[in-house]
């Protein structure tokens, strides 16, 4: 149908690919419509043949380029992948969840959910737009998952296996259960309140027939009972376990107040006189459940986004079998296999290099900022990145046995060993509960001399007036609001206790590579002519070494001449012919051995953190570049702000001590506050030692920091960090730079202040209520009215408090 209509292309396709919008190479310009590559032609054909041509009319995609990765996703069909991520449904279909990059609008829903049209055998595709998760069901006999994955990829939605699937299903069940509880409690609360309105209005002039009053009271009692038994059960269970473990917490007074008020109401209904508070009981259950639900949701949003980031890390390896390279999931690797590691790929296993010479970037594993050369016979580790040339590596240890696996296990161990943070509000609640119980006993004792009925009424009034509703709300509400606002500022906080631990100054340990520095090589110094720049880039364009990337990024837009006969020497440099000249770019030793240096540019530089690179033209050194892992622009400012607010800062890095000392001095660290060449194990030991004498916060990005991050009181991961570091961290900064760190610390302080104000206000209400109830001034009805007013005040305080916002 739409094939003919859409084949008349809009004017812009003369230059741009009809599918992805990239420029069309001259050789292919004759076609109509024109494509930049055959992959886009296939995608275009498939879309038209499946009746999906409307894709090209969607307003939302017009200004967006589609970037298919062109991968084959063969590892998605591997048995190991299937065992890990794919479930078989009762109807025989296979089902899995994929995390898609780049879904953002209604058109994406349309397109992704049309996958079954384009890939026969796929039964359904359902997209969760908010999280970018698509649930795909297919018939394993007719289709493969890789076909569906390739289709999604050609549309620009790069699929990744969703690793949080199991935890996600568990949480979904939990969520549904809480929603059911909240709904039931809400329905009961509203209806009991309606009955209560009838009872209260019956007090007015004229009154209500006693028979009706009795009827409404009986109805309220019966309707409230299921609220106590079903939605209210978590409070009673919590109270029981609190008594069993002898740690008083909020659930105890809640359970006491609920059962006290209910039993008292039952007694009064049976006697046919005295007030009843069934409406208060039902409303209390409903509101408390709402508060808890909101709090868990806010904390989960932060955990979720960290989990989706996990799904992005590559989990494939290219296995060489009989000279054929196949993509398999990293989990399927076994010792003895040979893997092909391309330039730029991350290693998925520990192994020994068989063929090839290259350099290995170990920044994430060890914190070394410069790549190290490797040649056949050298050992390489999972989690490091190959820079330079292809390598063939024999797998020695894979998965949990690899060095990375050991570090990950250490991370889990230290995370579970971490002492639970005793929350201020909880310990306060414990004392509060004890005080309330004593006061209630006193009230009863004082009034039982007057009459048993007065004693009971006043004791219940006291219990209701001191209901820790507002107190219970103060902490979770302030934390929920703060976590939500922090997330909008790019700070993902996984739990409220992290905010509490960050609110007061303590020791803060920072990693260097990737945390204080950008984690990539940049040009810092240049001595030489403009012509030398052009010649340098002409050669560096042919390399993917971090030095080359750094140089190329330094001078974008430079008119670079073509180079011929380019030859790379691993650990040395590049040579080639540019504009008729013989050009060398490389390390001083390598260039020095091949060229004269009349101006002494090859002499050691003043800055030990920079790696020198010399450029020689026709046998004479003409330029010198100094490259290094540059500091983040906001690092100095952030550290100054942290020091000013009383934090003790330390630098702990795996890089060489000379570099660490130089960076440390520049950022105002005393020499004894800096430590270099620390292995992951050293970092863990150091943090554990510091944690014994007080709170310690660890900020890092790499796998080498992960164990230390897990062991610290609060672990903070920075943007661009490794997966292990993300999962270990309590707080994750998803905005680049270090400025969010200072924001996090000051925001945490303001959050705790807001909590304390809320607690103070609610206690004020409670003290007032206690005084009035003890004096017999208020009856339970007035007490029941005071209680929601105090809760409302606390809600407003939490809402209005400035915790994480732009003005802060």
């Amino acid at each position, binding site marked *: 149908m739409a094939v003919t209509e859409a084949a008349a292309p809009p004017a812009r396709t003369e230059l741009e690919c009809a599918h992805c919008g990239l420029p069309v190479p001259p050789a292919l310009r004759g076609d109509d419509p024109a494509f930049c590559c055959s992959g886009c032609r296939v995608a275009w054909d498939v879309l038209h043949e499946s009746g999906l041509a409307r894709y090209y009319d969607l307003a939302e995609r017009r200004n967006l380029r589609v970037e298919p990765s062109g991968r084959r996703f063969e590892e998605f069909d591997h048995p190991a992948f299937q065992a890990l991520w794919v479930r078989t449904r009762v109807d025989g279909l296979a089902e899995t969840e994929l995390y898609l990059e780049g879904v953002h609008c209604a058109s994406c829903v349309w397109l992704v959910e049309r996958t079954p049209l384009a890939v026969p055998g796929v039964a359904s595709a359902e997209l969760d737009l908010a999280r970018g998760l698509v649930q795909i069901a297919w018939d394993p006999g007719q289709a493969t998952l890789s076909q569906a994955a390739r289709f999604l990829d050609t549309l620009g939605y790069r699929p990744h296996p969703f690793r949080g699937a199991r935890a996600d299903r568990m949480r979904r069940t939990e969520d*549904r259960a809480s929603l059911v509880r909240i*709904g*039931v409690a809400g329905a009961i609360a509203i209806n009991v309140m309606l009955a209560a309105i009838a009872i209260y209005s019956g007090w007015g002039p004229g009154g209500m027939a006693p028979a009706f009053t009795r009827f409404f009271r009986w109805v309220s009692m019966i309707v409230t009972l299921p609220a106590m038994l079903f939605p209210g059960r978590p409070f009673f269970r919590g109270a029981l376990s609190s008594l069993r473990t002898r740690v008083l917490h909020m659930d105890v007074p809640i359970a006491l107040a609920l059962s006290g008020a209910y039993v008292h109401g039952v007694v009064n209904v049976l006697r046919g006189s005295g007030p009843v508070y069934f409406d208060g009981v039902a409303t209390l259950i409903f509101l408390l459940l709402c508060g808890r639900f909101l709090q868990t949701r806010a904390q989960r949003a932060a955990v979720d986004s960290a989990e989706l980031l996990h799904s992005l890390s590559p989990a494939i390896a290219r296995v060489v079998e009989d000279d054929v390279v196949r993509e398999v999931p990293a989990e399927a690797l076994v010792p003895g296999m040979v893997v092909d590691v391309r330039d730029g790929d991350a290693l998925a296993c520990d192994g020994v290099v068989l063929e090839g010479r290259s350099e290995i970037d170990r920044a994430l594993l060890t914190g070394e900022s410069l790549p190290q050369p490797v040649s056949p016979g050298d050992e390489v580790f999972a989690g490091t990145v190959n820079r330079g040339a292809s390598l063939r590596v024999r797998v020695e240890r894979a998965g949990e046995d690899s060095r990375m696996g050991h570090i990950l296990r250490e991370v889990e161990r230290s995370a579970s060993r971490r002492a639970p943070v005793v929350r201020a509000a909880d310990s306060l609640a414990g004392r509060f509960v004890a005080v309330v119980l004593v006061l209630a006993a006193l009230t009863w004792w004082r009034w039982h001399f007057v009459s048993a009925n007065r004693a009971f009424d006043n004791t219940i009034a006291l219990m209701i007036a001191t209901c820790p509703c507002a107190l219970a709300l103060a902490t979770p509400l302030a934390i929920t609001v703060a976590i939500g606002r922090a997330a909008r500022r790019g700070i993902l906080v996984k739990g409220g206790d992290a905010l509490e631990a960050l609110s007061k100054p303590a020791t803060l340990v920072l990693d260097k590579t990737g945390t204080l520095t950008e984690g990539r090589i940049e040009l810092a110094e240049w001595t030489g002519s403009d012509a030398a720049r052009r010649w340098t880039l002409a050669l560096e364009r042919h390399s993917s070494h971090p030095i080359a990337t750094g140089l190329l990024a330094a001078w974008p837009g430079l008119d670079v001449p073509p180079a011929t006969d380019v030859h790379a020497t691993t650990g040395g440099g590049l040579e080639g012919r540019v504009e008729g000249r013989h050009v060398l770019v490389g390390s001083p030793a390598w260039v020095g051995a091949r060229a004269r240096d009349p101006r002494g540019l090859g002499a050691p530089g003043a800055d030990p953190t920079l790696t020198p690179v010399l450029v020689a033209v026709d046998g004479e050194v003409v330029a010198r570049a100094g490259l290094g892992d540059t500091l983040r622009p906001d690092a100095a400012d952030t550290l100054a702000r942290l020091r000013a607010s009383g934090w003790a800062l330390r630098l702990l890095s795996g890089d060489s001590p000379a570099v660490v000392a130089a960076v440390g001095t520049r950022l105002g660290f005393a020499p004894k506050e800096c430590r270099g060449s620390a292995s992951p194990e050293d970092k863990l030991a150091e943090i554990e030692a510091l944690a014994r004498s007080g709170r310690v916060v660890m900020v890092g990005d790499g796998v080498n920091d992960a164990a230390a991050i897990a062991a610290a009181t609060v672990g903070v991961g920075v943007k661009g960090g490794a997966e292990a570091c993300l999962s270990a961290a309590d707080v994750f900064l998803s905005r680049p730079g270090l400025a969010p760190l200072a924001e996090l610390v000051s925001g945490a302080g303001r959050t705790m202040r807001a909590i304390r104000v809320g607690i103070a206000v609610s206690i004020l209400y409670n003290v007032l209520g206690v005084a009035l109830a003890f004096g017999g001034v208020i009856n339970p009805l007035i007490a029941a009215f005071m209680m929601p007013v105090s809760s409302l005040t606390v809600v407003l305080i939490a809402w209005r408090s400035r915790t994480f916002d732009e003005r802060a």
Partner: protein
Amino acid sequence: MAVMYILLPVALLVVLAAVVAYVWAARTGQFDDTTTPSIRPLIEDDEAPKDRPQPPR
């Protein structure tokens, strides 16, 4: 006003029906994703393709 004795239980039965419907909805995951389903009705149904196309290779 004796009708109250019938009216109130009937009203409660209606509430019970609503609660049962809600519990069913929550348990079958109707509230799991509250964003995407609101978009689906806006998507027009396309004509079914005449021939089943081949998957991308």
